[in-house]
């Protein structure tokens, strides 16, 4: 979606410290040139295909469709990307742009670690130095992802300020960029931040919706009647929705994280039920969860990838003008949706994507039998093994962890010395 000078209605824009002006202008120009350069686009498509495994399938879910007895349910399988999520579409695009700009280093923020891993993968492949900022609390909760980032050669920096989560990691990435802008690119993971990041990330993610346009016509002879996507930062939703923006008959539903309840601090609902308020922070204007004095607030979701305090200015605008209908799913509904997909279709969804499932499953029984809905399965759920095991109260898991720990060699350094 084209912005007007970086704005989407009243949202978006560029609200960055003066020190970043030149670097931002450089990205604006590089992106503008790259998206009109056939060679860049050919390389992008090649990397999407050969590195990430695109195009991803559109999967019909016969069992779920029968179970609900309403709309015919299809999943867009972004979980089948390399790295297991749609994040790959964006990091490949920005990674190639970094090479084009001649920069040697990338900085990224990450919450759950999915964007961190995707960035580290691409940095390794393109030979870029890579620094990932991650809240110290997120590092504790998501250590397996941190482990892989480090194995991939990235430097993972724990952020110990504020709530020590995604918002603080983003602040710290911006601070690094303020110092290192001449050599480094800030590889933001979602369609947020100052212009042109929302537009650029949405552009790279739009491969999702562009594929669905072709696949839906090929598989069932029409565009989908309705699209569903979870909305954290908003990049997978932008990717599925934006290519259908001008097709007025295609309805769009964004699903936010209802978390544990609607009290401030228990959820991450920014766009419905008057819970978020307009604000300007972290480089852009959007709806933020904040108190009446304009201080940004804590959020919660069972899915770490959905607990961002702001939201893409593109989604905020489209929700405001009514093009996208916003709803939310609570933590327990999300686990139920995840479990249902496992049992009925043999697919392991990420908890983020399970929000989209939960939103769609509520509507499906009431939709006509000949209607077609596409749910963006933005990521796979292997990463959520600990959280899901806890949520379904698996009895054997704690024993497994205890046994594993007992057999774990803790004097690793000594072994190395002996072997040397």
């Amino acid at each position, binding site marked *: 979606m084209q912005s007007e000078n970086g704005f989407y209605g009243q949202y978006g824009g560029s609200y960055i410290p003066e020190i970043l002006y030149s670097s931002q202008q450089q990205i604006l120009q590089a992106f503008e040139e790259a998206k009109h350069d056939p060679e860049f686009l050919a390389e992008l498509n090649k990397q999407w295909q050969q590195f990430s495994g695109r195009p991803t399938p559109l999967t019909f879910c016969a069992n779920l469709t029968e179970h609900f007895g309403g709309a015919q349910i299809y999943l867009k399988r972004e979980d089948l990307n390399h790295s297991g999520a749609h994040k790959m579409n964006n990091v490949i695009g920005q990674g190639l742009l970094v090479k084009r700009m001649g920069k040697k280093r990338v900085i990224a923020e990450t919450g759950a670690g999915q964007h961190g891993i995707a960035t580290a993968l691409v940095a390794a492949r393109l030979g870029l130095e890579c620094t990932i900022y991650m809240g110290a609390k997120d590092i504790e909760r998501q250590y397996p992802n941190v482990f892989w980032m480090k194995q991939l050669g990235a430097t993972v920096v724990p952020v110990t300020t504020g709530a020590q989560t995604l918002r603080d990691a983003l602040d710290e990435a911006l*601070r690094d960029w*303020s*110092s290192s802008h001449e050599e480094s690119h800030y590889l933001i993971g979602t369609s947020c931040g100052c212009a042109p990041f929302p537009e650029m990330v949405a552009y790279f993610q739009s491969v999702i919706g562009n594929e669905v346009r072709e696949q839906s016509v090929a598989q069932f002879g029409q565009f989908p009647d309705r699209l569903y996507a979870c909305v954290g930062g908003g990049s997978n939703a932008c990717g599925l929705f934006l290519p259908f923006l001008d097709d007025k008959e295609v309805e769009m539903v964004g699903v936010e994280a209802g978390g544990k309840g609607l009290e401030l601090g228990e959820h991450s609902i920014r766009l419905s039920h008057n819970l978020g308020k307009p604000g300007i922070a972290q480089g852009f204007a959007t709806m933020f969860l904040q108190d*009446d004095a*304009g201080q940004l607030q804590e959020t919660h979701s069972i899915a770490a990838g959905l607990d961002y305090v702001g939201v893409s200015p593109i989604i905020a605008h489209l929700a405001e003008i009514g093009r996208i209908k916003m709803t939310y799913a609570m933590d327990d509904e999300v686990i139920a949706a995840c479990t249902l997909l496992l049992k009925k279709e043999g697919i392991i969804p990420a908890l983020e994507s399970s929000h989209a499932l939960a939103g769609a499953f509520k509507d499906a029984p009431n939709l006509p039998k000949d209607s077609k809905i596409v749910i963006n399965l933005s990521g796979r759920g292997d990463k959520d093994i600990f959280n899901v095991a806890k949520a379904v109260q698996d009895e054997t898991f704690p024993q497994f962890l205890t046994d594993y720990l007992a057999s774990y060699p803790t004097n690793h350094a000594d072994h190395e010395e002996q072997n040397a």
Partner: protein
Amino acid sequence: MSQLAAFIKEKRQQKPILSMTHVVYGYPSVEESLDWMARLMKEGVDFIEVQFPFSDPVADGPSIVAACHKALEQKLDVETCLSQLGNLAKDYPNSRIVLMSYLNPMYRFGLDKLAKRAAEENILGLILPDLPIEQAATYQAACKANNIDPVWLVTPVTPPERLAMLASQASGFLYCVARSGVTGHSSHESKAKQTSLDDYLTLIKQHASAPMGVGFGLRERAQIEQLIGKADIAILGSALLDAYNKGGQEAGIKLIKDLFSLKANQ
């Protein structure tokens, strides 16, 4: 002429360089921060730059970030802050107050209201580092209507034509950021390229008719001396906070005296 620029020009008749010292409002408590501001003005600093805390201060380094987060453990209110600063301005007429914050808390308060209330409380300048001049038309108009100054920042990597534009728009003073990066010491420091401060300030002076303040990374007397004749105000932020954290008001005052050799306000 702007009230701020007139004050600076008059003060500069007696001093080779003026001092601006930074204080985080509400750190470690509202009362202690107000007491610290009063002490600084009593000791004769020319300006205090008061930072109203924001949860996500992206242009600041670790010292100021930590102080802002500590301050935000209590509920802070912009209106109360402005009235309290107004009282200080009355008590210490030989110094001036500028208010610094990030856009969001001020945006929620209302930029029109902010300019009006700041002027009423004799706060003559406003610094909002994440509000670029391109998005600031209504804010500029509100400042102008109330005869106070928005303070714009320029940096060593600001392109020359943009630097000329910002310098020409500056009225009270122009805030010249001395180096890339965030305020104070931080782990990011080594990543920044060094530029010659002299060349940079000379270039700005060619374009700026407003007085010039220099900040970011100042912590030694030699740095202040280097600015004499090239700038009007030296801005002391994180270094002062670090001294205050180590040894309270006395350590802070000692640092200022070492750096500026101040004479107390009578």
